[in-house]
Every structure is written in structure tokens, then in C-alpha cells.
């Protein structure tokens, strides 16, 4: 910290040392200058930096006062500013009001009357062009409270005929153009900061802009002011040292003091070059805009009022003033398309966004209301302003006293700085009221507080205020006193005393955007949900019961709700009962709706389109055509389009796209998902449509060829999991009939299975299963292979992995279930414990993770095979062990069994009538050969001799 800064931190105390001087000089601030010069000499021993700063302050004030276009300096959330503004507007009746607010927000301001304040004016852009893509979405909010000077200016300008309101600050686009996000590392979040509450997060991650940001830019200065002011935070300091003294001061004093404070903070700011540049550019921008406006309209500067933060009023840029240099070129906006709207805000959100102390905005609102009552100043209020008390019908005729002629500004600063600290008289009744109220509130919240506590709080507040050099306890003193006297070792309820005082002092107020100011989409949603007859605009959760069977008109509400659920953040619309699946319709649904709480999300949805269908369609399209989209995500979009929009057109379009995506895919990661979704869609189309949509036919066809091609690779690829390969096989086998009917060739599948040579045991098992399904591997062979695995001590440890392959094979080859049960049973029966036991958890997790739908199949089959009762178990022989015995008992099948064959021919010979009758029917004039001659070559030759045409044709073919 440099020496001048340290010295000038004492500035507020200079007042103690300056002596009243006669105002002899003709210039307004000459005497003040003289005194400051003396003070500087006294403190720093000569003309140096301190003197420069002190005199610079007076110069700044002087310059701002002399500006022909009246500058009205304000501070945010300052009731004194608001009051002074209301007074000045009534007095001056300006024709043009220039306001420091993003110029592109102007059209929205008239909508404020439909809203319950505080709300925030928002500029929002998703389709960004000219900024880094990772900044998207861009959002700027300017919260507006009723107790603010800007609201006074807006209300006056909009409701007084013939008055023009001109917003002159840089546009939302420039906010980001001048943003140094890319250049500066973002500050690390404060680790001690408490997590944001729901109300505090109302603005989302928008960039906040505010009129009249006035706060030391210099941490040491702020710390110094707080310590000497015996206050805890900045808001309290402001309240104590600026609000109260300025409360009832006249216009000139107000302006000069605000100019002085603005100048002080400006001159004592550390040299953050970027921030200074942005501030100065904004000032240049505003003055340039004002000059442009004047040039266009030719309005007299005396009829204008320029409302800006005190910080900017003390500007030293060359463009300052109506006669300032015209050298600033306003850069064009980028091609980003900005949307504008109003979103609900809250005191807590404003405090969180702008780093104010908790409760300070609420206290400002309370002070404003009290000041209005006390001073009888009639504030401006937009006609028909929603929320709050109804404003009394104003007598319009009285409103316009003739504008007061400007008198030359006098030095009010010296008087102000010399006046002793204002001691706001103790308002005993108010303090008593507070004390009684807090005790009641505490009692309601579980504290054992009594009248004795009210007395103690009252007494302690006064004592505390006394210790902090003030006669009247501030709300913050009162809060401390209440905590001291009422808070004990534990908090009995949900809120502690500190919070209770905050609530009592006004509490958080949450704004609401009125129906008329909502974007068309949000209005549409409210209209369409009207049949539910719920106050959806209110905050909190509402339960909606939809008896769709009884009231079919509610079906459309249900559609809207499902779309909202898909589009809004979690919690805005939550189904409690009822679900939406392809091909199903619910007859009853119940929902928890919190649209009022999530109003901002709904409004931001409105920036994307005019109806939720349109927004959903856009989002689905965007998801499907994203460069990262996979076949599975596209199919999901198809499903959603069918499910929520019932749009065959969109589904077809996206389906065709899915086809394209699938054929370009080279990995099989999405195979399980693709299989699941295609199956579901196929089932849906088969039941609900007369013919399958062409895209899904092509998809199946292309998928068949695609997966056939990828199969050999997937079997050997280490990255492809068993589950994925199983899903591929599942696709191939379950879509086979459809694919073949559409012209696919089964040989392709057989070839690709033939080409597959997996190394991994589980994939090998999968391949065996596939071969069994295709008929190239008989079951007996499969069983023999498994037995061999179990019998070979070298490979036994890998048997469980074969088994997991078989379990996965249930998906493509469900016919193998009994075999899998057999294999698992064999494993339990024959695997040695050191192999079996470690594998069991794996089996369970595999089944739970991948086989949730396969397990029931296995269990059912096992239930069929195993005996149902314990008693039966002793005598039970597993079917696979019983099989050979049955085989032996049964007369031999196939060609091998000689004895069986003999038995059969003996039977035929014994009963020749059957054969004869069949032969006669077939027109075959055969005769019985004697036993033993066998089916020799002779009969074949005889047959050929009787029908020579076949042989002749064959001969011709071969010979040719």
C-alpha cells in the first residue's frame, strides 16, 4: 500500500480538524479548498500526493456540478438516493431521463408494472457468435427493487406523458465484449462461503449489472472505514454514515456529497487497469450516446436528467459532459442474437450477486418505506404495479409544480463535512416494537423467551449502540443484542435468532414476473395447464391430480407436464404416479409442480421458442445432429419425439439420421442401447402402425449388415465388452427374420460367426452359444466342451468366465436357458472351492448389473428344472445326467443303431398294411424285399431304370 492511500484513508475524519472559514472567494468551493490544503499540510507536512488527492476530490465535485446537463448521482439500494430522486423529479420535471442501464433492455421496462418486484431484467443469448463457445449461454441481469432510485426514474419517465426514458449504458453485448474472462484467471471461490440457498440462486450464473455500484475498490480502505465506523460490513457503514446524514438533506447537498464519495472511491482505487478501462469506456459510451440523442432530438440540456452511479459522476474522461470530446467510437455489436425478458429476483439473490451483507437489501426496503411515510414525499410508482399495496389514486392535477429555475450551485459540502455526526434520536417506540416482536418470533421458533428477554434486548440494544457511539441502535445493533440475550447454547428450531431478526426486518422478498410479462411460451404453458385449476404462479410445490380416464381433457395437460419434465430442471415438474412409455397411456397421474419456484427456468425456455413443442423439437434435433451423437442418442431422440411430441414426421427424420450415424460408427459401445431402443420402437410400430416406417426397416437392414461386419472384430477386440458383443448378437438374431424378409442374406451372418476367433473365455462361450443357435454346434458337443473344461485342471480356473459368457448369451439366444442353468449347476457341483468362492460375488454383481432382465429367465428355468420340495431332492437326478440313460432306453434314432433298425423293420414286416397303404397313396408300386437283402444298390438302379429322364438330364449337364 502506498503512503498517500494510507494517509487519505483518514479522509472522513478530516472534518474534525477543519475550521469554519468565511466564504470570501467567488468560486463555490474556494474555502473548502483552502481548508483541505491546510489539513493536508498539517497531516503530511507539505504539498504532496495527499493534497493532490484532497483537492482533486473538490475538483471532481466542482466539475460535476458545473455540467449543464444535470447529473444525478445514485447508489444502489440506497433509500436516500431513491427519496432524493423522487423529490428531484417532482421538482424539476425533466423531459428526458438518461439512465445508466444497458440500452438494449429499454423495451422491457414498461413490463415491470406487471411484476411483483424485485425482478431482474435479463438479456440472454444461446446462439452466440463472436464470443468463445464455452461462454454460452450468455446472461446479463439487472435486478430492480422498488426502493431504488432507478425505479423512481423509470416510473416517472414511463408514466408521465411527454417524457422520454433513454438507456445509455453499453449493451449486453458490450458487457461481454469488454469482459476479460479470457485474459484473467477467475478468482477462486471463497472456501468459507456458505452454500448458496435456493433463494440466493435465483439469478443462476448470470453476470449482474447494477445502477450505482458504489463501494471502495480498495480492500484496505473498506476495512479502515468499517473499523472506524464500528460497523461490521459495508452496508451498515453506508447506512450509518451516508444514509442517515443524507436522509433529509436538500438536493444540492445530496448531489455534492454523493459526488464527493464517488470521487473519493475513484481516486483511491487501486490500479486494476482492466477495470478502470471498462469503467472509463462505459462513461465514454454513455456521454457519446447522450450527445447523439441530443443531436437527434435537439432537446435542451436543462430539460434533461442523467441518472448514474456516483462513481461514474466523478469521471475524468475527456468525453465527459455535453461539450466533451467526441472521440469515442462505439464498437459494433457481435452477431450474437440477444433475447430479453424479465425473471424473478429476490433480495437474497441480489445480496448474493453483488456481495452485500445478508439482509441489507431488505433493511433498505424497510427504511425506504419508513422514510416515505415520515417525509411524506410521494414516490413514483408505475401505473398498475403488481404486488405491494395499492397506490392511492394520485391527483394528477397537483403533480406538476412548475420546474424550479436553476440557481447557481453553492458549496454545501463544507457545511456537511463540518456538521457534527448526525445522531438519529432514539426511536423508543420502534425499538420496543422490535424487542417485543423478536421475543414473539423466538418463542414461535422454540426458544424459551419471555417478556424479561424483551426488556433485556431493549436495554442491551441501547447499551451496544452507546458503546458504538450512536444514540440510536441500528438494526444490526439490535440483531447483536437479540443474539446476546435470547440465543442460548443450542438452536431449538430451524432458524437461529440472527435469521429471525433478518426475517423480522423485512425478510427476503421474492419477486414474481406477472403473467402479462411472461414470454409467449410461458404464457402458453400456463394457459394449457389452466384446466388443472391450480395457482401455478405461486411459489412452492403443488400437487396436481389428473384423472385422465374421468376427464379426457386433462390428457393434453399431461402431455404438457411430460414435456416440462423433459425440459425443466429437476423438481419443476415431478411425476409422483404415472409414467409415459411407448405405446402406453396412463389413466391417472399425479404430479408435484413447482413452476412458480422455477419461474426463471420457464422464462429462459421462452427465449428458445414460442411453444414447448418447438423448443423440445429444437432440442431433440440439436441432440441428434450434435457431432458427438451416437446411434443410441439419435434413437433416444426418436423415442422422445414419438413419446412427447407424437410427431411421426420428426421421428422419421431423426430415424433416417440414425441410420446415417449408425453406418459411420466404428465402435460397438452403443450396441446394447441401440438394441434396447430398436426393439422398443419396433414393438411400438408393430402394434400401433399398419406398416413399419421405412426408416426402421432400413435401420434393421443396415444394422444387420453393419453388425455382421463388425462382429469378427468385436469378438477379438479387447475394448469391446461381452455385453456389447452379446447385444450385437442379440440384434442380429432377434432382427433376423425381419432383416431376411427385407433381403438380407443369412450367409453373411454365418460367415461372420465363422470368422470370429475370440481369445477371451467369456467371448468364446458367447461364440459357442451363437454357433449353437445357428446350428453349427450341436448341443451334445457344447456339453462335451463344457465337461472338458471342468475336467481339465489347467483351465478350471477360467470356467467362471465361460459361464459369464453364457449368462450374457441368454440375451441373443434365450433358447439356451436350460443349458445355462445346467452349466451353472455344474459349476456349483464340480468347481473346487478356491475357484468357486471368489467367483460367486462376480456372478452376483454380473447378474445384478447386466442381467437384471436375464436373471428372471434363469430363475424361472431353474425353478422348472429343480424339484420344488426338499424331500424330492434326494431322489432327484438332473435332467442332463438322466439324458444318456433315456437315450439308451429309447429305440435308437439316426442311422447308427443297428439293433434298433432291425427292430423297426421287423415291426414293418409284421404289419405291412400301413406301408402298402402309404405306397398306394403315393402311387408307388413297390414290393416287399426279403429280410436281410438290405437297402442295396439294386433298388436304386431299378428306380433309375424306371425313370431315366433324371439321369439323362444330369448326363447332359455334366457332358455339356
Amino acid at each position, binding site marked *: 500500500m502506498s503512503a498517500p492511500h494510507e494517509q487519505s484513508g483518514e479522509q472522513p475524519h478530516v472534518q474534525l480538524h477543519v475550521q469554519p472559514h468565511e466564504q470570501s472567494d467567488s468560486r463555490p468551493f474556494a474555502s473548502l479548498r483552502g481548508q483541505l490544503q491546510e489539513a493536508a499540510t498539517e497531516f503530511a507536512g507539505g504539498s504532496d500526493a495527499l493534497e493532490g488527492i484532497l483537492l482533486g476530490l473538490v475538483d471532481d465535485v466542482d466539475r460535476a456540478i458545473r455540467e449543464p446537463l444535470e447529473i444525478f448521482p445514485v447508489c444502489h439500494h440506497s433509500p436516500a438516493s431513491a427519496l432524493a430522486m423522487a423529490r428531484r423529479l417532482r421538482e424539476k420535471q425533466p423531459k428526458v431521463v438518461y439512465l445508466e442501464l444497458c440500452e438494449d433492455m429499454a423495451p422491457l421496462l414498461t413490463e415491470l408494472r406487471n411484476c411483483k418486484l424485485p425482478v431482474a431484467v435479463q438479456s440472454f443469448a444461446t446462439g452466440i457468435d463472436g464470443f468463445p463457445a464455452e461462454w454460452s449461454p450468455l446472461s446479463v441481469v439487472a435486478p430492480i427493487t422498488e426502493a431504488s432510485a432507478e425505479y423512481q426514474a423509470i416510473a416517472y419517465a414511463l408514466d408521465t406523458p411527454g417524457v422520454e426514458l433513454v438507456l445509455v449504458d453499453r449493451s449486453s453485448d458490450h458487457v461481454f465484449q469488454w469482459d476479460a474472462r479470457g485474459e484473467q484467471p477467475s478468482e477462486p471461490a471463497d472456501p468459507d462461503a456458505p452454500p448458496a440457498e435456493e433463494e440466493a440462486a435465483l439469478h443462476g450464473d448470470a453476470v449482474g449489472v447494477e445502477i450505482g455500484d458504489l463501494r471502495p475498490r480498495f480492500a484496505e480502505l473498506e476495512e479502515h472505514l468499517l473499523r*472506524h465506523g464500528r460497523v461490521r460490513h459495508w452496508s451498515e457503514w453506508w447506512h450509518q454514515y451516508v444514509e442517515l446524514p443524507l436522509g433529509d438533506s436538500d438536493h444540492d447537498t445530496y448531489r455534492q456529497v454523493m459526488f464527493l464519495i464517488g470521487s473519493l472511491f475513484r481516486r483511491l482505487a487501486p490500479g486494476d487497469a482492466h477495470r478502470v478501462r471498462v469503467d472509463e469506456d462505459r462513461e465514454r459510451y454513455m456521454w457519446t450516446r447522450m450527445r447523439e440523442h441530443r443531436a437527434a432530438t435537439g432537446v435542451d440540456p436543462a430539460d434533461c436528467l442523467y441518472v448514474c452511479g456516483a462513481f461514474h459522476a466523478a469521471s475524468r474522461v475527456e468525453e465527459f459532459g455535453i461539450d466533451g470530446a467526441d472521440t469515442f467510437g462505439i464498437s459494433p455489436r457481435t452477431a450474437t442474437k440477444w433475447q430479453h425478458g424479465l425473471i424473478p429476483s429476490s433480495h437474497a439473490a441480489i445480496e448474493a450477486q453483488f456481495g452485500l451483507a445478508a439482509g441489507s437489501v431488505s433493511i433498505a426496503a424497510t427504511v425506504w418505506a419508513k422514510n416515505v411515510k415520515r417525509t411524506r414525499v410521494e414516490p413514483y410508482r408505475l401505473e398498475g404495479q403488481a404486488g405491494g399495496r395499492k397506490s392511492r389514486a394520485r391527483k394528477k392535477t397537483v403533480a406538476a409544480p412548475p420546474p424550479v429555475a436553476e440557481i447557481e450551485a453553492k458549496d454545501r459540502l463544507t457545511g456537511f463535512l463540518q456538521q457534527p455526526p448526525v445522531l438519529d434520536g432514539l426511536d423508543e417506540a420502534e425499538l420496543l416494537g422490535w424487542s417485543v416482536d423478536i421475543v414473539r418470533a423466538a418463542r414461535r421458533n422454540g426458544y*424459551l423467551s419471555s417478556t424479561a*428477554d424483551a426488556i433485556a434486548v431493549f436495554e*442491551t440494544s441501547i447499551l*451496544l449502540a*452507546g458503546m458504538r457511539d450512536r444514540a440510536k441502535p441500528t438494526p444490526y445493533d439490535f440483531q447483536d443484542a437479540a443474539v*446476546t*440475550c435470547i440465543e442460548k447454547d443450542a438452536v431449538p428450531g430451524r432458524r437461529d435468532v440472527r435469521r429471525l431478526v433478518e426475517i423480522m426486518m423485512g425478510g427476503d422478498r421474492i419477486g414474481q414476473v406477472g403473467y402479462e410479462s411472461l414470454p409467449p411460451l410461458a404464457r402458453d404453458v400456463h394457459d394449457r395447464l389452466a384446466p388443472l385449476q391450480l395457482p401455478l404462479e405461486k411459489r412452492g410445490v403443488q400437487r396436481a391430480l389428473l384423472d385422465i380416464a374421468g376427464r379426457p381433457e386433462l390428457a393434453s395437460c399431461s402431455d404438457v407436464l411430460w414435456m416440462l419434465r423433459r425440459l425443466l430442471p429437476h423438481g419443476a415438474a415431478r411425476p409422483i404416479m404415472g409414467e409415459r412409455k411407448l405405446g402406453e397411456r396412463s389413466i391417472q397421474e399425479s404430479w408435484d409442480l413447482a413452476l412458480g419456484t422455477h419461474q426463471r427456468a420457464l422464462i429462459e425456455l421462452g427465449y428458445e421458442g414460442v411453444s414447448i413443442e418447438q423448443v423440445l423439437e429444437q432440442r431433440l434435433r440439436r441432440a441428434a445432429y450434435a457431432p458427438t451423437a451416437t446411434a443410441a442418442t439419435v434413437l433416444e431422440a426418436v423415442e422422445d419425439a414419438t413419446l412427447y411430441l407424437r410427431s411421426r414426421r420428426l421421428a422419421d427424420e431423426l430415424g433416417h439420421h440414425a441410420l446415417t450415424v449408425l453406418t459411420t460408427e466404428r465402435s460397438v459401445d452403443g450396441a446394447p442401447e441401440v438394441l434396447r431402443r430398436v426393439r422398443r420402437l419396433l414393438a411400438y410400430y408393430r402394434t400401433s402402425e399398419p406398416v413399419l416406417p421405412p426408416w426402421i426397416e432400413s435401420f434393421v437392414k443396415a444394422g444387420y449388415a453393419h453388425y455382421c461386419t463388425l462382429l469378427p472384430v468385436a469378438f477379438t477386440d479387447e475394448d469391446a465388452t461381452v455385453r456389447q458383443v452379446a447385444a450385437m448378437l442379440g440384434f442380429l438374431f432377434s432382427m433376423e427374420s425381419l432383416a431376411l424378409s427385407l433381403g438380407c442374406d443369412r450367409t453373411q451372418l454365418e460367415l461372420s460367426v465363422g470368422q470370429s476367433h475370440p481369445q477371451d473365455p467369456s467371448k468364446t462361450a458367447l461364440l459357442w452359444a451363437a454357433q449353437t443357435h445357428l446350428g453349427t454346434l450341436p448341443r451334445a458337443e457344447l456339453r462335451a466342451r463344457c465337461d472338458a473344461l471342468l475336467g481339465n485342471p489347467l483351465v478350471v480356473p477360467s470356467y467362471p468366465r465361460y459361464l459369464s459368457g453364457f449368462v450374457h448369451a441368454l440375451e441373443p439366444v434365450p433358447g439356451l436357458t436350460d443349458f445355462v442353468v445346467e452349466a451353472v449347476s455344474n459349476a456349483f457341483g464340480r468347481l473346487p472351492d478356491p475357484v468357486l468362492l471368489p467367483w460367486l460375488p462376480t456372478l452376483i454383481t454380473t447378474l445384478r448389473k447386466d442381467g437384471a432382465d436375464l436373471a428372471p429367465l434363469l430363475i424361472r428355468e431353474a425353478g422348472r428344472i429343480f424339484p420344488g420340495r426338499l424331500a424330492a431332492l434326494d431322489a432327484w437326478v438332473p435332467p442332463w445326467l438322466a439324458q444318456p440313460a433315456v437315450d439308451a432306453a429309447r429305440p435308437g434314432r439316426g442311422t447308427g443303431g443297428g439293433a434298433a433298425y432291425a427292430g423297426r423293420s421287423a415291426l414293418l414286416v409284421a404289419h405291412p398294411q400301413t406301408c402298402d397303404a402309404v405306397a398306394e397313396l403315393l402311387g408307388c408300386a413297390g414290393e416287399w424285399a426279403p429280410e436281410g437283402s438290405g437297402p442295396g444298390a439294386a433298388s436304386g438302379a431299378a428306380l433309375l431304370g424306371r425313370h431315366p429322364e433324371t439321369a439323362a438330364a444330369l448326363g447332359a449337364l455334366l457332358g455339356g
Partner: protein
Amino acid sequence: MSDLLRAPAEIKYAEELDWLESVDDNPKPFSWRLSPKMVRLFIVGSERADGLDREIAPKWFGDRSFVERSIVTLASDRGLLLIGDPGTGKSWLAELLSAAISRNSTQVVQGTAGTTEDHIKYSWNVSMVIAKGQSRESMIPSPIMTAMETGTIGRFEELTRSTSDVQDALISILSEKYISVPELGSDRDSDNIVFAKPGFSVIATANSRDRGVNDLSSALKRRFNFVRIPVVTNKKSEAEIVRFRTEELLRRHQIELDVPPTLLDVLLQSFADLRASAAAAGSDDEKLESALSTAEQIGVLEDAILHSNFFGARELTARTLASSLVGSLARREPEDLAILNKYLHGVVEPRSTEEGGSWPEFLEGGRDAIATLS
């Protein structure tokens, strides 16, 4: 240098208090020796803007509003109960307050399981009672009763350690502000009631870790204002406290020894680490038994200083610091040692390779100490 091992605050800062009293022209409540503003100034220290001719050093480090609330409570008719974790400076604040207000911080009742009502009210000099009978002369007033008679501050340390019925003896003292002595007769004119003079109040301290042992009755709670003193987690002010207390200690022991700032950092950092691990621990077995308060830190440093002064090379080293850290914090045999061991290997070891400085030596000392203990 006084010949007391540990002088109470009013003796230690007698000169400063005298001076403050001489310049204090603000109104003083009751029989207070200093005005509330001066009491605050004495405790939290002066600033240039206070316009005093000499500088008053801060003696208690923490949020000013705690001090203000405490002073204001004493000026009201309620008692003050300072509550907080062990080692947060409750007793020190109580001592400073009573020294500043009534120049006597020694009227202390120590709450224990063995504290009886006699310790709070009065007891009898048995031999005198036998010789002369019960009278004012044969009565032994408790520190609280003495405070009542003189209109000063009485202190009750560790209020929640004493049993509930004993605690409740305070109820009538705090609300009626007198103690009746029925043994002296029931006549109206007999001297059987001791009334409190204006200025009397009670500062009690309670340990928030003892909650649930002997909970205060709601009647007693109502008569106390609670001021909760939080554990200092701000590293800057903690460093301030440790430095202040260490200097005082060195002065008291007349030891001339330098505490290198880097070692102070090592100490603060290791406590911060251990606190973080205690906060993340799931069960009591995973955290150290110690509360890891600032007082504990001072204890570790004191131990290390004394050790290096008398057994070492009259120079504080990281090795000594580490062994006194382990020695003071390892209280339960397997659990605490295991945690410290984990801390040394998991946190200090990587840091010593990364940052160097005093850490490698600290690590070595810690390892040796653990090896000796286990």
C-alpha cells in the same frame, strides 16, 4: 518482574489500567473502574483513531463484537456465560473483563464434580463457631459472596462441571441479588442477609464439549446471556495469538530464545492439517482426542521452548517441535499414535520433499518421537 509465577491480569497490566482510568472521562456504570468503551479498548487494543497518547496492546484476539456483547451484558442485570470449545480463550477473556471492570479477577469459583453449594454461598469457620457461635465473623464468604459485598465481578469457571443442584444456587443470586444466611437468625433486624452492591455480576465459563453432562436448567439459562466464542480458524489471527502468548511465556520464564517464524508456520500448518483430518474423520477412533485448539498449540510450543532451553542447544528446532507435538497430542496408545503416524507419512513426508524448509527435520523428529512412544 513480579515474584508471582503467574500474575493475574489486574497486576500484570496494573500500570496500563491506572493510566486508562486516569484518562477515562466517559460515564461509568455502577462501581465500574473503567467505562465500557475503555474496557473494550483495554481488551482489544487501541488504534490511532482512538486518539490516545499511548498505545494499548490487544490482549484478546477475536471478533470485537463478542467483547462488546460481553461488556454490555455485564452492564445489564444478567450474568455472562462464555461458552465454547476448550482452549478458545474463554477464561482469559473472563479474567480480562473482571480485571478491567473491577480490578479483581481472583474471585473465582472452580466448578468441579465436588463443588458444593458452600463454595458458592458461604461456609463456617468451625472452631470459631464453637468458640463464639454463628456470627458474621465466623462466616467464610465464598468468592461470589465477596463479589456481591464489594460490588465487583465474581467468576465461575467450568460451570457445567458442577452438578445441577449446585448450579441452581446461582439462580437466586442472579435474580434476587442477595444471599440469606438463615443460621444468623430470622429476626428482621438480625444481619442475616447479604445484599449485592451495584456493579456485582457473574462471569461463568462453560465448555461446549461438556454439553449433556450437567445441563443448565432453563431457569438458570434465562439468567445468563450466552456469548459463544468460536474456535479461531483464521490463520492470521491464530498466528497472532500464538505469538502473543509465546512472548508472554518467554518473558515469564526469562528465557531468551528466538521462535523462527518458519517454525511458527510449521506449527500452524500442522494444526490446520490435523483439524482438517479430524473434521473429515468418521468416528472418534479416527480423530485425535485433543480438541486441537489454539491453547493446545501454545502448549506444544511452550513445551518445545522449555525443552530446547533446558535440554537443547538453547535454540528451537523443528525436531524438538515435532517431538513435543507428538508428545502432547498422543494421548491414547494405539489410536492417536496411528493418526499421527498417518499424518507424518501421508502429509508431512510429501510436503518435506516438495517444499523442503523445516519440514524434513520436522518429519524426522516426529518419526523418532513416535518410535519412542510405540
